[in-house]
């Protein structure tokens, strides 16, 4: 059940080098230290649980974290919907976004799934287009198109909100 010694050393090295950046990456998407640590820890746990079967642990980490962030967003959205349902008087109130980081994050959250994943992995996690294509199982050209459309949507939304 346990990792071999060499695997242990490699796993620890990966943890030391990648955890702070992964957790920081997640924090920027969830704006909450506790949730960021939970997601980063869960991603590493899943990674170590299937370490011997993975060829690219770095990519796997960010894919898992991306999915966990998406789940977190869904959960938050579910709660927001429930609150709106029971407090209809608030629905017409202007949403107050405290800062630019939250503002852009909300827009990214609203992107279609395939664009969102490509966008997060490329612009946010820093993977190249080829790596993102491999991670998502799509052609490079498709990923480039997804990134192009994601940028267009965001700029359009930002322009609308800033008018």
């Amino acid at each position, binding site marked *: *059940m*346990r990792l071999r010694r060499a695997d242990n050393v490699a*796993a*620890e090295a990966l*943890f*030391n080098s990648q*955890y*702070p*950046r992964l*957790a*920081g*990456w*997640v*924090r*920027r998407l969830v704006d*909450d*230290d*506790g949730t*960021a*640590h*939970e997601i*980063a*820890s869960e991603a*590493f*746990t*899943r*990674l*170590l*649980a*299937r*370490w011997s079967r993975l060829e690219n642990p770095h990519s796997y980490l960010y894919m898992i974290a991306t999915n966990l962030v998406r789940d977190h967003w869904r959960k938050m959205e*579910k*709660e*927001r919907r*429930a*609150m709106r349902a*029971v*407090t209809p008087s608030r629905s017409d109130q202007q949403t107050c976004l405290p800062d*630019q*980081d939250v503002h*852009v994050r909300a827009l990214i959250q609203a992107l279609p799934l395939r664009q969102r994943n490509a966008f997060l992995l490329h*612009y*946010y996690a820093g993977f190249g287009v080829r790596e993102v294509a491999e991670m998502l199982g799509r052609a490079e050209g498709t990923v480039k198109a997804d990134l192009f459309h994601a*940028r267009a949507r*965001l*700029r*359009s939304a*930002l*322009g609308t909100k*800033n*008018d």
Partner: protein
Amino acid sequence: MTEPRDELGAWLGEPVEPLAPPPGTHERIRKNARKRKRNQAITATALTAAVVAGLVAAPRLAGVFSPAGRGQRVEAAAQPARSPQAASGFRNKLTPQPTVMGRGQPLPNGFEPISATFVGLDTGWALGTLSTPCVTPGCLALARTDDTGASWYAVRAPATVIATATTGVSQVRFLNRDDGWIFGPELWWTTDGGQDWQRADTGGMRVVSLEAVRDRAFAVFARCPASQPLIPNGGASGCRSYQLYSAVAGTPAWQRVPGATSGPGTASVVLGRDTGYLLGVSGSGATLSSGPTASGDWAAVTTPCQAGPDTRQASSGAASGAAALGTLLATVAPDGLFAACAAAGPASQIVTSSDGGRSWHRSGTAALAGAAFSMAATPGGTMLVIAASTGLYVSADGGASWRLALTGPPGGFSYVGMTDVLQGFAIPADHSNAGILFTTDGGGSWRWSTVPRSG
């Protein structure tokens, strides 16, 4: 107007600020990963066995295999519909039916849940006693569900007895699918979902309250005279002293929480995700302290209810945990806190704090008949539910107004918990009802999940 290209470009160009792991993170991850590898191996082996068995046995057995391989699943007959049912009085209770048993031993006959805990929408554990004659040592059993109570199967319980004043256990809490505690007054812990339990050394003290969040558990250890009886929800009153301790999940090293109030009397702990609260009471009155659920010092904050100790207990003759203090607490993220303050009359004043208990304001009044034992809030604080001796009371407007959502069985409900913005569960005070109630609409309606029994 800001140029949109600039805003997007600035956001994308902003470097990611690293977030250092809290101490012990790597060890915890390694440990959890090892457990998952082991469970994956067990499941794979068991699934292979199930397929082979399915080829030679009756096909209808294939659907009742326990996915975790940890216990034996039992499908409850006459299961309630998953959709919410209207709650009108007590007619929702399902009549226990003979059960369709899975392979091996099912839950012991006569299982009566006294405490439950959930770690997600689907997975939970119920600690139960057994109607006599008992078939397990200590008349104690533990059940697990992975489908929100639609079916339950047996998992190993600690080698102890159902609680008396000074021995045994009465409550269960799990932090995740692996780390759990059973307590009140003894303290037991598991790191493998209940396959193995170890008893923690409490130095002769009773554990009267315990909750878990993030990576650790917080527990109130109290020294109480042997003559002091156990009261519902694992609590005790009239103790000589109490102290708040915490331990990282999976470790037996309980350490006193610095700055948390202590002294004679008793206390109850409630936890938000980032902030915890300790409500204590002694002969001189109540105190509230709060602090981080990560490591760090706690400090006293403003007490929400200024009434003396336990005005309600004197009239009802039964109170529990925080209820014994005349106050019920429920947390909401990130620093929100609701309190129901018992009064001499039937109305409980509902107060709320949005700054972690530093200041309070009144949000409404709940006209509760009988004694209130437990309060829970949905994560956003929109829905509040109070378990009382007469039924379940619900507020959909942050405590401003309340209605009786379900008239209870005799004795009402001893505990209510919300696992989600819409989903929650309640435990009847009279355990012989042999069931747990679930809501999937924020407390508006409730349905029974009968834990299978044929005794």
